[in-house]
């Protein structure tokens, strides 16, 4: 109840701009370095480099902002970083083998983990760390997205090219939607009506109706001067008003800006090399992109849609989580 209250207060506070001046903490997982880099959002200085297990990739912050949870693929576990102490305080060992991406529901009770090697989605109880269920999906599961009401979790399987919609009460797969090749990320729109699923090799984003499971529209990206095979959509995020979407386009070194209502592509923002995952500052003013090949992170202003600055992080930066 308390958690719910503070969350709604926070959402209410955003339009007033109360959060705007506060420095946020940006957590970037560095796949090659076995670290998470923590930066101050205002100075963009590194606050701390936190050692983790081997091959940290998927990274999320809990809704209470107290913990950052990181998938530790090569050690078959999740590391939990305390956001006050800025160190790994515990691990979840029941995460299943080779966790790659994870999601936490809005209540912060459950963790959903994609186990890439085993074709499973593991559901963990956050408090006890116990596995509540293992849901078989397609081959090489990766993307995880939880619907705003927590009722559905969408997993993508890269080799099977599907988005699997899982009922979070029964742990049953209620729909399998064939999308384009190598789907990587699933993200619900803020109203929960659509799931956006990016396909890395297919070069598209499928917009799926969350009720009928039909593909409503497929975004394609035609960038002049860029060879089509370099357009590899991965990370998807929406602005706080839900009107604009950002899609990281991998080796084309760009972030696409999309009008959610019309599906029109408004802009392509040039960032560092091979941006994969992106994250929005909780106050909605900035977008951050982890650039895998240039070992840095680009800061984009959400209003002007300009890349403002690029700062060094660790080697092979992969994902980003932000504490307001």
């Amino acid at each position, binding site marked *: 109840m308390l958690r719910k209250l503070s969350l709604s207060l926070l959402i209410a506070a955003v339009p007033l701009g109360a959060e705007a001046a506060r420095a946020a903490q940006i957590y970037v997982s560095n796949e090659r370095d076995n670290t998470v880099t923590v930066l101050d959002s205002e100075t963009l200085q590194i606050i701390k480099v936190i050692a983790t297990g081997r091959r940290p990739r998927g990274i999320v912050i809990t809704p209470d902002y107290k913990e950052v949870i990181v998938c530790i693929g090569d050690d078959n576990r999740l590391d939990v970083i305390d956001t006050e102490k800025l160190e790994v305080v515990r691990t979840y060992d029941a995460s299943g083998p*080779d966790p790659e991406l994870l999601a936490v529901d809005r209540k912060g009770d459950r963790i959903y983990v994609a186990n*890439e*090697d085993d*074709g499973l989605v593991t559901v963990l109880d956050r408090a006890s760390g116990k596995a509540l269920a293992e849901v078989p999906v*397609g*081959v*090489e599961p990766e993307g995880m997205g939880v619907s705003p009401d927590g009722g559905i979790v969408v997993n993508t*399987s*890269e*080799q*099977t*090219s*599907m988005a699997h919609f899982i009922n979070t009460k029964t742990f049953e797969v209620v729909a*399998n939607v*064939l999308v384009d*090749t*190598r789907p990587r990320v699933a993200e619900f729109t803020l109203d929960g009506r659509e799931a956006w699923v990016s396909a890395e*090799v*297919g*070069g598209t984003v499928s917009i799926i109706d969350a009720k009928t499971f039909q593909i409503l529209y497929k975004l394609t990206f035609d960038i002049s001067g860029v*060879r089509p*095979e*370099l357009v*590899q959509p991965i990370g998807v995020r929406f602005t706080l008003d839900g009107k604009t979407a950002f899609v990281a386009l991998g*080796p084309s070194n760009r972030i696409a800006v999309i009008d959610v209502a019309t599906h029109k592509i408004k802009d392509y923002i040039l960032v560092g090399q091979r941006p994969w995952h992106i994250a929005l500052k909780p106050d909605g003013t900035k977008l951050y992109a982890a650039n895998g090949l240039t070992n840095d992170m680009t800061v984009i202003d959400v209003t002007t849609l300009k890349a403002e600055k690029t700062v060094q992080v660790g080697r092979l930066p992969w994902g980003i989580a932000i504490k307001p």
Partner: protein
Amino acid sequence: MILRLLFAAAALVGYQTGPAVCDETKLAAPIVYLSRAYAEPLPLSLVEPIITDKGLQGARLGLSDNVATGRILKHDYTLVERVSSDKAGVVAAARDLLGNGHRLIVADLEPDELLAVADLAEAQDAIILNARSSNDALRGASCRHNVFHVAPSFAMRADALAQYLAWKQWRNWFLVYGDTPMDAEYVAAIKRAAARFGAKIVEERKYTFDPGNRRAETGHQQIQTQMPLLTQGARDHDVVFVSDLDEAFGEYLLWRTSLPKPVVGTQGLMAVAWHRSYEQYGGSQLQGRFEKFAKRLMTERDYLAWLATRVFGEAITRANTVDAAGLRAFLLSKAFTVAGFKGQGLSFRKWDRQLRQPLLLTGPRSLVSMSPQDGFLHEKFLTDTLGYDEPETHCRLPN
């Protein structure tokens, strides 16, 4: 209607991997793995295990990937495995399977057997995926409308190395090659690559000595003197470019050349479609899944058979048909790409039905680079800088 008929035919044949399932709602999608147990040279290095099921295990893993998707889409994939001991056996097996309605074939065959199967009257409407041979003639003068090439050609391999050597500015090559027909094919591709990418073959030598059995307990002393003899007195060169496809001596060139020069080609730095050192673009996932599945490392032939099986799976998934004519049209259309862990969708070249693909340049223990190299330009696909491009092809196909 055609689908129904095919389904009925497949049901009559039965499946090697299980009983026929006569579920009306399912689309039967049987894929044939056709091979011959060739006498293969043993690897020279004792570190390399002797593997007798290269290719087959890859096709089996490809099947299991297809099955995962097919289970949901109600496509019932099966793999019919036929490995014969001689050419007549291969042709008889192909006749038998084609006669029973099979049309989708993964061919782990050398050119002789491959063409014998492709030219069967009953194979004219089949789709045969070459998952083994790099022979350039198969993509050129001897191309067939019913044969698609998943394996990279010798020309693609030589070009992939040549681009890297050009980038390094190692332009003077000393060519050393073995005495087999396949070596002659690769040597021709190496010479073509040198001309295309501005390199010079300063000298060439054929090596005919047969080192014999791979066991050579005290043989290293002889080898230590043989390799400098083979390589001494050659004109000024940057690299030794070796073609030794039968693994008779190439391994021995490393660290034993007369001058301290790097070795590239079939040993040393190699251009391949797959290697254990490769982990890029999600490649670790495939390595890991294969090792769990087959209890050994994934060889290039396993990868190619896996990829060929996946080509069929991907096409059936997207086109929602097992009709060979429909699938052939789809494979040649712009809509078809298959993911092969190379960071881009792979598609077939229309002019010779060769699968476009980046190639790995790998040393014995680590990945060195991937070609095409940056800076080599092409108006359509960068990967078309590897091998025979449309204006150069000797292949003449009706469509």
